[in-house]
Each structure stands twice: as structure tokens, then as C-alpha cells.
């Protein structure tokens, strides 16, 4: 039987893998951008990024000092009895020391830092249940430079598709050099204010080389990505061909009188990792094989 300690150990290992090595699709997109760049200044920025990716793996070191806030997605079997939340929280506490992660979590008003990345509602866990017999935990380590550029728009239905495009384009222009471009963008359309933002973040969980299953949404993903890459903001906002590595959209039905749109901005270091913990104790990391 899976125990709380198993969850804790898996969380520590998951965080270590996630902050050290990028998922294959993100790394591939970065290497492509590097190969495609011809101007000297952006080429040097991308070279530093590619070199840094290699050095982080070689030294088993976090690729960026901002190991972010830890956003968890836990999907659990219906008959699960183990205290997963406690396992995750203790795992984060241990990973902060052992990996190490930067102690980022502070009280929002006093700014007091407990030093272990654990506090009120932190780490945050999103829950789902399923019929499978294993526990799946995904984590996103979300840095502040890009998260700070995220936005919500409560559009009116009459603003429609054009309004959505306008909002995304303006947000990218406003973010400019700040979110460590080339970025990855997650767009959440519909739902309600909170759901649009939640979907925007969840959109970042999908690999960059997978388009949405709905052809209309897939078309919008491509169209927005192409338009953003015309802007020439470039790596670190110093100009160049690639401003955005990938753009994913998720949607939900919404009130007939609303059109919420959320945008979640992710820096080039699109760190996400998944662990599966099977009832027989087998642990696998599908995002970080090999």
C-alpha cells in the first residue's frame, strides 16, 4: 500500500527533476529557436539559455534560481486513503532543503519568509479523482517574472473573437521583455473569472507540439502564435525572431452574458513534471524518462 512517506519521497524527487530538466517538448522548441536565430544579440541570449540547460542537467542543479511557487495537480483513485496533501507539503519542505529550492513563499502582507516554502495554502494543490488505480501528481514550478505578467479580461460577448485576440496581443506587448521571453502562453477562454485563469494555467500543462483537439481552437492557437512572433520582442526583449515558443488554449462554456479570458505567461523555463505512484509501490516519471 502507498504510504504518506512514499508520496513525500516522490514529491522530493519530482521537484528535483522538474527544476533541473525541462520537458522534451520545451527543450526542443528552445533549440529550434536557437538554430533559427540569425541576429547576434538574440543569438547570444539563446546560446546562454541552451548552455544553461546543459549545465543544469550536468550538475544536477536548478536551471533557474527562481524555483517558483509550486503549483500541484493531484489526480487520485476514488478509494485513496493516504494523506496525499500532507505527503506533498512535507515533500516541498524537504525539497527546499535537499534540492535545494529557493525559499520563495512569503506572507502576502508582512512578507515574512518562513524559509521552507510552506505556509497558508502553499503549496497549492488542485484535486481530481479518476477510476485508475494509481496516483498522478503533476507540478509546475512557476517563477514570478512571468507569472506577474498574467492577466484576466472580463470581455463582453460582443467583443468576441476579435476581443480575445486584442487582449492577448496587448498583454504580450505590455509584458515586453519582463517575463523572460521567449515565453510560453496559456490562454483560458470562458468559464468564469476564476475558471478562465485556472484554464490558462492548465493550458501550460499540454506539450507545445500538441494542438487543441478542436480544429477552430487549434487554428486560433497557430494564428496567435504567428502574430506574436512577428512582433520582434525576441529573447529577453532584446529583439529577434522568437518571442513565444508556444501558445495553448483551453476553453469552457460560460454565461451567455460573459466572455472571460485569462492569460498565463510562462518564461522559457517551462518547468513541469509528473509522477505516477502505483499501488505496488512502482514510481514513474513520464515527463522525465531516461
Amino acid at each position, binding site marked *: 500500500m502507498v504510504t504518506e512517506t512514499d508520496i513525500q519521497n516522490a514529491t522530493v524527487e519530482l521537484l528535483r527533476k522538474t527544476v533541473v530538466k525541462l520537458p522534451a517538448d520545451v527543450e526542443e522548441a528552445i533549440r529550434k529557436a536557437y538554430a533559427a536565430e540569425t541576429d547576434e544579440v538574440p543569438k547570444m541570449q539563446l546560446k546562454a539559455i541552451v548552455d544553461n540547460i546543459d549545465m543544469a542537467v550536468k550538475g544536477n542543479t*536548478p536551471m533557474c534560481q527562481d524555483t517558483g511557487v509550486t503549483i500541484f495537480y493531484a489526480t487520485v483513485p476514488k478509494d485513496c486513503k493516504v494523506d496525499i496533501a500532507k505527503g506533498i507539503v512535507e515533500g516541498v519542505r524537504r525539497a527546499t532543503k535537499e534540492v*535545494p529550492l529557493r*525559499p520563495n513563499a512569503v506572507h502576502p502582507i508582512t512578507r515574512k519568509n518562513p524559509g521552507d516554502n510552506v505556509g497558508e495554502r502553499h503549496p497549492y494543490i488542485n484535486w481530481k479523482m479518476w477510476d485508475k488505480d494509481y496516483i498522478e501528481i503533476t507540478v509546475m514550478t512557476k517563477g514570478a*517574472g512571468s507569472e506577474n505578467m498574467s492577466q484576466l479580461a472580463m470581455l463582453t460577448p460582443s467583443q468576441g473573437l476579435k476581443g480575445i485576440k486584442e487582449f492577448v496581443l496587448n498583454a504580450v506587448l505590455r509584458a515586453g521583455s*519582463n517575463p*523572460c521571453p521567449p515565453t510560453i502562453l496559456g490562454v483560458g477562454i470562458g468559464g468564469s473569472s476564476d475558471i478562465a485563469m485556472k484554464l490558462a494555467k492548465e493550458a501550460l500543462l499540454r506539450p507545445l507540439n500538441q494542438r487543441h483537439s478542436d480544429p477552430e481552437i487549434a487554428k486560433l492557437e497557430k494564428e496567435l502564435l504567428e502574430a506574436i512572433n512577428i512582433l*520582434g520582442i525576441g529573447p*529577453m*526583449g532584446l529583439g529577434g525572431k522568437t518571442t513565444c515558443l508556444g501558445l495553448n488554449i483551453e476553453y469552457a462554456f460560460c454565461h451567455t452574458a460573459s466572455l472571460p479570458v485569462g492569460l498565463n505567461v510562462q518564461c522559457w523555463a517551462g518547468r513541469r513534471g509528473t509522477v505516477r505512484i502505483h499501488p505496488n509501490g512502482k514510481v514513474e516519471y513520464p515527463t522525465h524518462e531516461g
Partner: protein
Amino acid sequence: MAKRLKTPLSENDVRSLKLGETIFLDGVIFTGRDEVHIHALEYLEKGKKIPVDFNGSALFHCGPIMKKVNDKWVAVACGPTTSSRMNSLEPQFIEKFRPGAIIGKGGMSQPTVDAMKKHGCVYLAFTGGAAVLAAKGVKSVSGVEWFELGMPEAIWIMNAENFGPLTVAIDAHGNSLYADLSVKIKENEKKAREMLGLK
């Protein structure tokens, strides 16, 4: 060939740097971000002495991951943080403490560009997220001040060796790569809007 400079920087060093030039730094670098700016200016107002001398120094917008190995601090990962968060305090900080260079990412706004011109300071862009590469250029850490502000917000005193590559993105003559680029981006925006069928 990229230029190598040693801190503390003289006004002549600073004024000689050209926009877009690549440089590497040697010598002491101080980290300082949001809380250091707030605290240093508060200390000054209250007439209290700050623990380091920023004159001619390289101030690094960075909140590193540090680790204690055999009682000594070691920089694990120390890339730059978003400099624009310091936009509101930086002109005053430059005027009062006279750093020779600010290392960060993403650039800074016009009042900082103006203060850099007036007081002789440059903005050196380091690639955001390239934290292991940055740590490679930190030979040792000789101390920490204001540690009570937390690991990311403290002043870390780093000894750099061949720290870079750094791009002179704002020079000491009022020029900024970001401002130059924003003109081009405005042009490109028209094309992007056309592609999206927007007015």
C-alpha cells in the same frame, strides 16, 4: 573580443561602454533587489549606515539560491530578476549610492536611463533564467548582509570571475536598446494586427 572589466568601476570605465557591447566582469558584485532598495533608502533617510559601499559597484538584481558547504556560502543558481520592479526606486538609488553598473534583465524605464546618464552608470543585461551559467562566474561568496530579509532579498557579496556574457543594454549617455527596439516593435505591431484581422 568581449571586454573584461573589474569592479569597482571608475567613471571612465562606465562612460566608455558602448550600447550593444558584450562584457565580462571580475571583482565584487552585490546582489540587491526589491527589499534592498527599500531598506537602503530608508536607512539613508534615518541617517543609518548601510553595511556595504555601493560606490562604483556592480549591483545585481538577483535573488540567488545559496547553499552552505563546510560553513561557507556557495552560489547554486543566481540569474537576474526582473529589473522593472525596481523602476520606481532606482533613479534615487543611483543618485544616492552611485553604483557603476546595474546587472539585471528586461531593462529599466526612462527615469533610470536619465539617472544613469547623469550620474555615470550602465545597465548590463544578463540572460534571464541562465542561473547556472551565472553561478559559474561567481568564484566565491564572501558574505551576506541583511540576511533577515530572506535568502532572495538579502545583500550577497559575490566575488566574480569572468561573469557574463553581459550586454550593455543601457549606456551612460542616455541610450537604451529597449527604447530603440520599442520603435521597431510598434511598426511590427501593425503587421501583427493585420494578420489577426484587427484594426
